[in-house]
C-alpha cells in the first residue's frame, strides 16, 4: 500500500514549482514547472474519473508510478470487429487489459463501464488481466468502450487465441476437479479406516461392513481422480519410457486391487486410504505447480499481446485503413509512419532510413536505396514511406524464422528432467522388489496368494513415489514463485534445471546489454536552456530521436503551434529541430543519429545520439562471471562499437557483424564442444540462437519472436534479475537433489520393514505424510535467499 503522506500528496497536488510532487493520476514524480499532472492524458483521465464520481479510486490505488499514464495513440485495432453477437441480442467483447495490477484498478474499470447506460455487465479478472463486457446495442459501441478504458490509462489489446492458450482453462479445471474428488475420497475413507485401526475388538461382520464402505468410496475416487496420472502413464508406456506417473499409477492401481481382494476375504486391513491419500497429495502438488507456471505464462502472453500487430493498408482511394498484419497479401501497399516497426517484408520506391537493431543487431540506422528488400522487424527512423509488400505474413521472413524455431525446439524437447531421470532408475527397482516379495511370501513362505499380495503392495506404497514425486514440483513452485515476484517469468517447466547447469553465457549487445534505443550523448558544451527548448519542441513527435531528447529533459513543457514536417523535423515559427538539411547545415556527418536545432541569427546546435549500454550491464556481467559462467559477446553491430561494449562490461571474447546464422552456428559449436550455453538476446536475429541454446533468456523489451523462443523472460528493466535467477535456479536444483536423496534414504529403511510384513496401513500413512511434509518444508527454502 502507499504510505499516508504519498496519498495526501496525490490528492492535493503540490503547487507549481515544488519538487517531489507526483502526478495526480499515474503517480509519476513531477518535475518543477509541471502542474498537477505529468501529461495531458493523465489530466484527461483524472477529469474522467472525477466526472464519474469514482475518485475513491485514488485512495485505494496500489499501482507502480507511471503504469496508469494513458497511451498517446488510441488503440490501433478495430474493436467493433471483435464484438461477438450473443443469442439474446447482446454484444460481448473480450479484451486483454494491461496495467490492471490492483483491486482498485479492477473496481475502476468495472464501475466506469457499468456507468454507461447500455452496458449490462463488465467483469475484469485480476489474474488473467481479462475484461469481459456485455452490452445491448450495436457492435460499433465497442470502439467507445475500448476508448473509455484507454482514456483511464490502461493499455488494451484484443484477447487473442495466444492468451487463451496460455490459460488452458479446461485442463486446469479438470485437475482441480480431480483434486476435489481425491480430497473428499481420502478424508471419508480415512474416517472408516481409523475405525478399523483402533477397533481391535470389532466383530467380523462389522469389519466386513467397514471394508466395503471404504471400497464404496475408494473405488470411484481412485478411478476418477487418478485419470490425469493414468493418461500420462499410458502416454509414457506407448513412448516406451518410464516416468513418475507410471510409478504412481501402478502403485495406486495395485493398492486398490489388493484392498479389493482383502475386502473379499475380510482380511485385517484394507488400503484404500493409502491409495486415495496418495492421489490427493500428488494432485495438490500438481495444481500448485501448474498455477504458478500459468501465472508466468500469462504474463508472457500479456507482453506479446501488447505488441501491436496492425498495419496501415493503403486503399485505392488514397485513404489508409488499420488492419491486422495477417490479412495482408503480397502486392498490397502499406503506409509505414515514422517510428513504426515493419510487420511484413516489402520494397519501397524511395530511399528509406531503417533501424535494423532487431533484425541484424546494428545500432546505427542504415540508409537503404529504393528497391532494396526491407526486412520485417526493423523500425522506420526516417519519414513515413509507402511500401509494397513482397510476401504475406505466413510466407515472409518472420514466418520462415518461426518454422526454424519450431525445429530447434523439438531438438531441445529431448531434455530429461531430474525427476524423470530418478523415476527411470527407480521404478524398475521398486517393482522388482515388490514382485520378489510377492513370490517370496507365496512360494517361499507358503501363504495364500492373497496374503502374499499384502506385503508386496505395502512395499510399493511405502517406497511410494509420494515423497519422490512431490520432491521436484514442490521446489519448482517455491522457486518459480520467488522469481515471479522479482519479475522473472519462467515459461518452460525444465527452464530452471537447465539454467542451473548453464556454464557459458552468450550475450547479444543491441537491446540486451544496451538500451536498444538511441539516447542523447552527454555534451558539456550544450546549453541547458537550448536542450529544454529542443525537448519542448520534440514533445510533439513520435520519432525515436525526438523521444530521446524528451527523455533527456523530461521536465520541458509541451508547446503548441509545433508543425511536424514528415521526414525532416519540427518547426515552430523560425525555430527548427530536425535533420541537417532541414536546419540548413551543409557539412553534416551522415550518421542518421544526430538532430540539429536552429534559431534565427544563431549557429545551429547539434545533438548526437547513441544506443548506450544499460547502466547495470557491467555489474550484471561481473555477477554472471562470479557465478562461474564464461561470458561471450555476439553482436551484429560494427566491430568498433562491439569492442567498446566488451571492454566497458568486461566480457571476454567478442564477435562483431554476426549474422543470425553465425549466432546459431556459434551456439551449435558450443554445444558440440560439450558446453551448456545460456543465450541472452532480444532481437529477431537472436531467435534461432535462443531456440538452440541450452537455456535462453530475453529482456522485457525484446521482440515477440525472441520472447516466444526464450525459456525465461525478464519483466523488469535491463538484465539486473539474471544473476538472481541463476542463483535461485542453482539453489532449487540443490534442494531438488536433497529431496530425492532424502526420499531414497527413507525407502532404505521402510522397504525391508514392508517386505518382512511389519507395515500396517497406519504406518504406511505416517511414512507417507511425514516424508511429504519434510520434503515440502525443505522445498520452501528455495524461495528464501537473502538478496
Amino acid at each position, binding site marked *: 500500500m502507499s504510505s499516508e503522506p504519498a496519498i495526501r500528496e496525490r490528492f492535493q497536488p503540490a503547487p507549481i514549482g515544488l519538487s517531489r510532487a507526483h502526478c495526480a493520476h499515474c503517480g509519476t514524480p513531477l518535475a518543477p514547472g509541471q502542474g498537477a499532472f505529468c501529461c495531458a492524458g493523465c489530466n484527461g483521465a483524472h477529469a474522467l474519473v472525477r466526472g464519474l464520481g469514482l475518485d475513491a479510486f485514488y485512495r485505494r490505488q496500489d499501482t507502480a508510478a507511471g503504469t496508469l499514464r494513458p497511451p498517446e495513440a488510441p488503440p490501433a485495432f478495430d474493436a467493433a470487429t471483435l464484438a461477438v453477437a450473443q443469442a439474446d441480442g447482446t454484444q460481448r467483447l473480450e479484451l486483454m487489459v494491461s496495467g490492471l495490477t490492483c*483491486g482498485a484498478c479492477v*473496481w475502476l474499470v468495472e*464501475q466506469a463501464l*457499468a*456507468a454507461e447506460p447500455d452496458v*449490462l455487465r463488465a467483469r475484469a479478472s485480476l489474474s488473467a488481466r481479462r475484461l469481459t463486457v456485455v452490452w445491448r446495442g450495436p457492435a460499433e459501441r465497442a470502439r467507445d468502450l475500448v476508448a473509455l478504458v484507454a482514456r483511464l490509462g490502461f493499455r488494451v489489446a484484443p484477447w487473442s487465441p495466444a492468451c487463451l492458450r496460455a490459460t488452458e482453462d479446461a485442463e486446469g479445471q479438470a485437475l482441480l476437479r480431480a483434486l476435489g474428488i481425491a480430497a473428499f475420497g481420502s478424508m*471419508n475413507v480415512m474416517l472408516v479406516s481409523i475405525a478399523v485401526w483402533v477397533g481391535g475388538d470389532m466383530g467380523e461382520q462389522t469389519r466386513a461392513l467397514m471394508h466395503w464402505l471404504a471400497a464404496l468410496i475408494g473405488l470411484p475416487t481412485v478411478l476418477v481422480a487418478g485419470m490425469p496420472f493414468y493418461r500420462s502413464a499410458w502416454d509414457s508406456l506407448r513412448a516406451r519410457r518410464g516416468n513418475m506417473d507410471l510409478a504412481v499409477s501402478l502403485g495406486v492401481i495395485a493398492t486398490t486391487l489388493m484392498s479389493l481382494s482383502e475386502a473379499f476375504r475380510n482380511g485385517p486391513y484394507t488400503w484404500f486410504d493409502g491409495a486415495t491419500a496418495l492421489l490427493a497429495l500428488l494432485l495438490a502438488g500438481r495444481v500448485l505447480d501448474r498455477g504458478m507456471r500459468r501465472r508466468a505464462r500469462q504474463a508472457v502472453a500479456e507482453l506479446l499481446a501488447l505488441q501491436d500487430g496492425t498495419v496501415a493498408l493503403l486503399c485505392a482511394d488514397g485513404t489508409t485503413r488499420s488492419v491486422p498484419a495477417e490479412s495482408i497479401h503480397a502486392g498490397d501497399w502499406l503506409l509505414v509512419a515514422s517510428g513504426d516497426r515493419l510487420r511484413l517484408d516489402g520494397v519501397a520506391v524511395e530511399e528509406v532510413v531503417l533501424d535494423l537493431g532487431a533484425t541484424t543487431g546494428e545500432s546505427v540506422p542504415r540508409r537503404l536505396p529504393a528497391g532494396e528488400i526491407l526486412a520485417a522487424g526493423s523500425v522506420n527512423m526516417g519519414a513515413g514511406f509507402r511500401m509494397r509488400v513482397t510476401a504475406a505474413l505466413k510466407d515472409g521472413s518472420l514466418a520462415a524464422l518461426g518454422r526454424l524455431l519450431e525445429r530447434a525446439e523439438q531438438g531441445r524437447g529431448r531434455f530429461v528432467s531430474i525427476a524423470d531421470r530418478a523415476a527411470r532408475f527407480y521404478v524398475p527397482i521398486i517393482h522388482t522388489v515388490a514382485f520378489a516379495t510377492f513370490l517370496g511370501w507365496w512360494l517361499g513362505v507358503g501363504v495364500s496368494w492373497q496374503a502374499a499380495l499384502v506385503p508386496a503392495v505395502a512395499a510399493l506404497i511405502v517406497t511410494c513415489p509420494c515423497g519422490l514425486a512431490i520432491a521436484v514440483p514442490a521446489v519448482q513452485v517455491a522457486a518459480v514463485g520467488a522469481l515471479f515476484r522479482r519479475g522473472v517469468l519462467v515459461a518452460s517447466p525444465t527452464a530452471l534445471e537447465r539454467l542451473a547447469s548453464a556454464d557459458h553465457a552468450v550475450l547479444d549487445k543491441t537491446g540486451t546489454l544496451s538500451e536498444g534505443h538511441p539516447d542523447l550523448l552527454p555534451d558539456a558544451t550544450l546549453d541547458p536552456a537550448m536542450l529544454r527548448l529542443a525537448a519542448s519542441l520534440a514533445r510533439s513527435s513520435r520519432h525515436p530521436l525526438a523521444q530521446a531528447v524528451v527523455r533527456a529533459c523530461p521536465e520541458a513543457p509541451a508547446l503548441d503551434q509545433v508543425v511536424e514536417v514528415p521526414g525532416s523535423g519540427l518547426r515552430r515559427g523560425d525555430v527548427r529541430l530536425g535533420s541537417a538539411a532541414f536546419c540548413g547545415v551543409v557539412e553534416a556527418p551522415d550518421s542518421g543519429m544526430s538532430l540539429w536545432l536552429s534559431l534565427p541569427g544563431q549557429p545551429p546546435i547539434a545533438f548526437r545520439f547513441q544506443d548506450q549500454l544499460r547502466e547495470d550491464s557491467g555489474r550484471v556481467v561481473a555477477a554472471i562471471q562470479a557465478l562461474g559462467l564464461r561470458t561471450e559477446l555476439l553482436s551484429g553491430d560494427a566491430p568498433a562499437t562491439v569492442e567498446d561494449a566488451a571492454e566497458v562490461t568486461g566480457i571476454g571474447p567478442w564477435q562483431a557483424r554476426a549474422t543470425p546464422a553465425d549466432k546459431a552456428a556459434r551456439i551449435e559449436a558450443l554445444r558440440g564442444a560439450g558446453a551448456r550455453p545460456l543465450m541472452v538476446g532480444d532481437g529477431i536475429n537472436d531467435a534461432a540462437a535462443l531456440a538452440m541454446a541450452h537455456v535462453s533468456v530475453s529482456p522485457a523489451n525484446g521482440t515477440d519472436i525472441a520472447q516466444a523462443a526464450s525459456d525465461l523472460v525478464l519483466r523488469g528493466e535491463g538484465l539486473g534479475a539474471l544473476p538472481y535467477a541463476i542463483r535461485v535456479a542453482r539453489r532449487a536444483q540443490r534442494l531438488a537433489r536433497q529431496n530425492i536423496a532424502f526420499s531414497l534414504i527413507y525407502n532404505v529403511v521402510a522397504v525391508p520393514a514392508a517386505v518382512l510384513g511389519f507395515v500396517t496401513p497406519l504406518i504406511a500413512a505416517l511414512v507417507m505424510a511425514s516424508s511429504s511434509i519434510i520434503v515440502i518444508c525443505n522445498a520452501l527454502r528455495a524461495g528464501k535467499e537473502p538478496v
Partner: protein
Amino acid sequence: MNALVVLVPIALLLGLLGLALFLWTLRSRQYEDLDGAAARILFDDLPRKDSKP
C-alpha cells in the same frame, strides 16, 4: 451397530454435500480469478445504475 446404520449415511451425505458444493463452485468459475476475488470483497459499492435496461 444401530448407531452406525444412522451415523455412517449421515457422515457420507455431509461429505457428498461438500463435494457437490465444490464441484458447483468449480463449474461457476469461482477459481478463475483468485487475486481479484481477494480484492473484490473490500468494495461494497453497488452498481451505479438504478435499473438495468
